[in-house]
């Protein structure tokens, strides 16, 4: 749990919960943007409560998330105080995109790998506690700060923190949302909408040759057991949940625990080691994808409800590879001569499992290209259309 028992020693003038939700039609939460300042409670109160929580729940790990000014004295000063609470570890908040970054804290540090390395090193030198470095996604390459944290001696990284965002604009006042007295500021976006971005970043660190093996705590829109399993399959050893609890309360975690158990039992996964990182080797770079893999969409006519969305999506924006009318009747069928297997129809079809991509077996004819599907793996690095490959050959 990200927030449960988490102390935030940095002092703030006042706390303001300025949140705005991104909502679906039935007000289902898609994402949450906060521009809140972190805490207006004094450090001593936080420390006292952290200590109490650890005393009450000695068998639970308690991680304290810390953010102080980027000078060694500040870190040196706070670490013993945190240690004294009996906490099991600390998380360095290098992710907060607002409020602290303007004062040289939070993502202001997280966006500069050299600072990360330096602060992590200070912490490792000044505490016995394990150090988790929390990373901001508001950078271009997540591997750089992860590598820096590792070099500084971090025990683990956690990601992602929230993403700079404006969730909306009030079209009467023309103020960005969330709005404070007519003005808005980029806030931190979290919740289900950020999950794909977070998972990519987790995978990037998990498969990077320099950071491979570095423990990862996955964060970003985890709402169901399936979300948790996906993060873990991509290399996260554990996950953190905040927005889902903010939406539904802590009870949501019960579903995640039971769901994960049930799935692991069903699939015969004995422990977490059986799933953590299992998907990581399957994440590769684009140029290594098999270009001899050919798949065609197939529409299950018994399941098709004839909404025609696959047709119009393909017709207007893709490859004109799905019929709308066959022999005068409304009928949606893939034209194999045109289908490139792009997956768009699968995504827009409202019926689960109705449209599937079926791989062509090696040796069979691809009606679109008129070529036989090759049995061997071949990728972009050797493809004749790749100028780099041609240069290498020449």
């Amino acid at each position, binding site marked *: 749990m990200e927030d449960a028992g988490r102390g935030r020693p940095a002092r703030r003038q006042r706390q303001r919960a300025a949140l705005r939700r991104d909502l679906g039609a039935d007000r289902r939460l898609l994402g949450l943007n906060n521009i809140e300042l972190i805490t207006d409670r004094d450090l001593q109160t936080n420390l006292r409560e952290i200590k109490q929580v650890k005393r009450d729940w000695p068998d639970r790990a308690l991680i304290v998330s810390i953010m102080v000014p980027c000078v060694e004295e500040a870190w040196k000063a706070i670490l013993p105080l945190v240690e004294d609470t009996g906490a099991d570890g600390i998380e360095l908040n290098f992710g907060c995109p607002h409020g602290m970054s303007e004062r040289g804290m939070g993502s202001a540090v997280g966006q500069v790998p050299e600072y990360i390395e330096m602060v992590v090193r200070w912490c490792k030198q000044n505490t016995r506690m394990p150090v988790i470095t929390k990373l901001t996604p508001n950078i271009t390459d997540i591997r750089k700060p992860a590598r820096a944290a590792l070099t500084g001696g971090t025990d683990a990284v956690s990601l992602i923190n929230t993403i700079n965002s404006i969730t909306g604009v009030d079209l009467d006042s023309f103020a960005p949302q969330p709005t404070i007295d007519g003005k808005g500021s980029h806030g931190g976006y979290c919740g289900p909408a950020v999950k794909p971005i977070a998972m990519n970043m987790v995978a990037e660190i998990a498969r990077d040759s320099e950071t491979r093996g570095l423990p990862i705590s996955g964060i970003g829109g985890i709402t169901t057991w399936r979300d948790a399993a996906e993060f873990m399959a991509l290399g996260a050893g554990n996950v953190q949940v905040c927005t889902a609890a903010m939406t539904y309360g802590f009870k949501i975690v019960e579903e995640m625990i039971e769901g994960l158990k049930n799935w692991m039992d069903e699939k015969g996964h004995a422990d977490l080691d059986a799933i953590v990182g299992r998907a990581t080797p399957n994440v590769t770079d684009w140029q290594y994808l098999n270009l001899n893999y050919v798949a065609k969409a197939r529409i299950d006519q018994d399941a098709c*409800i*004839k909404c*025609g969305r696959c047709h119009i999506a393909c017709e207007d924006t893709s490859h004109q590879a799905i019929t709308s009318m066959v022999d005068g009747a409304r009928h949606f069928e893939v034209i194999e001569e045109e289908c490139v297997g792009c997956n768009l129809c699968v995504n827009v079809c409202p019926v689960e499992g109705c449209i599937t991509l079926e791989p062509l077996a090696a040796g069979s004819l691809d009606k679109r290209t008129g070529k036989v599907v090759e049995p061997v793996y071949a990728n972009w690095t050797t493809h004749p259309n790749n100028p780099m490959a041609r240069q290498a050959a020449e």
Partner: protein
Amino acid sequence: MAEGQFKQGIAAGRLAPPEYADNFSDLHPPFDRHEALVEADRCYFCYDAPCMQACPTSIDIPMFIRQISTGNPVGAAKTIFDQNILGGMCARVCPTETLCEEVCVREVAEGKPVQIGRLQRYATDTAMAQHKQFYERAAPTGKRIAVVGAGPAGLACAHRLAVNGHEVTVYEAKPKAGGLNEYGIAAYKSVDGFAQAEVDYITAIGGIDVQHDKALGRDISVAELASSHDAVFLGMGLSGVNALRAEGEDAEGVQDAVDFIAELRQAGDLAQLPVGRRVVVIGGGMTAIDAAIQSKLLGAEEVTICYRRGKEHMNASEFEQDLAASKGVTIRHWLQPKSVIDAGGRVAGIELEYTTLRDGKLVGTGETMLIDADQVFKAIGQSFDASPLNGSGNSIAMEGGRIKVDAEGRTSMAKVWAGGDCVVDAREDLTVAAVAAGRDAAESIHRALTSNGRA
């Protein structure tokens, strides 16, 4: 329960006053904004949508639902009115379960269609509440057109003609405009005077002069209208009512269902409207259902619909039949009226004969049965009364007892178009079909008067 429930014979005030209000409140209460957004979100925005194909007026349903879902119900209303200026009433009275909603892909997929009718009502109600007028009249053409009948066909025709810059005079036999919308729709489908509000909304465009109490064959004739106007549209509906052809049907207490429905719609105080304790309705269409349900809602103890064919042959939709059943109406099939039991000049019951299909032909089996009744409603179809036309002295070709028209709505008489229930139409006698006919005839008239639409 009010003690009036068990009064013998045909009596008023069977219910306590609040019960009338409850019984005749909106059949489908309007969606609020949130309900509309959630329901709109269920629409898949189908390509070449089946619902749109099924709509006689071809409303772009996926588009208007999309507009609702993006918070633009007024734009949605314009999408609807572009095709059907009576979209507000159609949203209330269309048998959507046999039109758009029957073919909704979600009906096919999960037996639960998008509630298109209620969404349409949400959009049109929103725009009408804001008095949004979407159309401006084109430059005056100087052409004058007579429309006979201010029902759905006539109003749709008049509006489209007015949009195109013509001057329209609507001649209506009744004191109010609206036709069946005003006189023929069950009260719980059109509450709060919606029919008149819609007439006002439609005529607000200007250029439409509605003259009341002007009946064809009595006050005006087709020949006169044709000579004094550039074109004539006949949309007078069906004024005849089919007879039971049963002995004793002249007894007191035997009444046309359409008259009962009209009286009920015009009644200021439903408690003053008398209804039988035991009511039998003969027929199998919407009129039979409406008369039966409203009898029940007025406090009749027993209401029985008797239809001479099977459930599957009833013109009333499945939904309407279920609605009647849920209100406590009994629907009996394979029974045809044989004679009305007369007790001192008043109805005391009705004798019916069982029927069957023999070689595709409906025949009586000879077996009879008796139902006690103090009121019998005839709802076995309406017919076109051609006498007002003949009175005009001109011959207008007929077909199947109604006016014959071509694909554009032209009759055999020069300058005269017709549409709605008074013409032979492959489509059922639906409000929405009448709107389509009136609208399309208006476009045909416009083309004819302006050389391909150019004034």
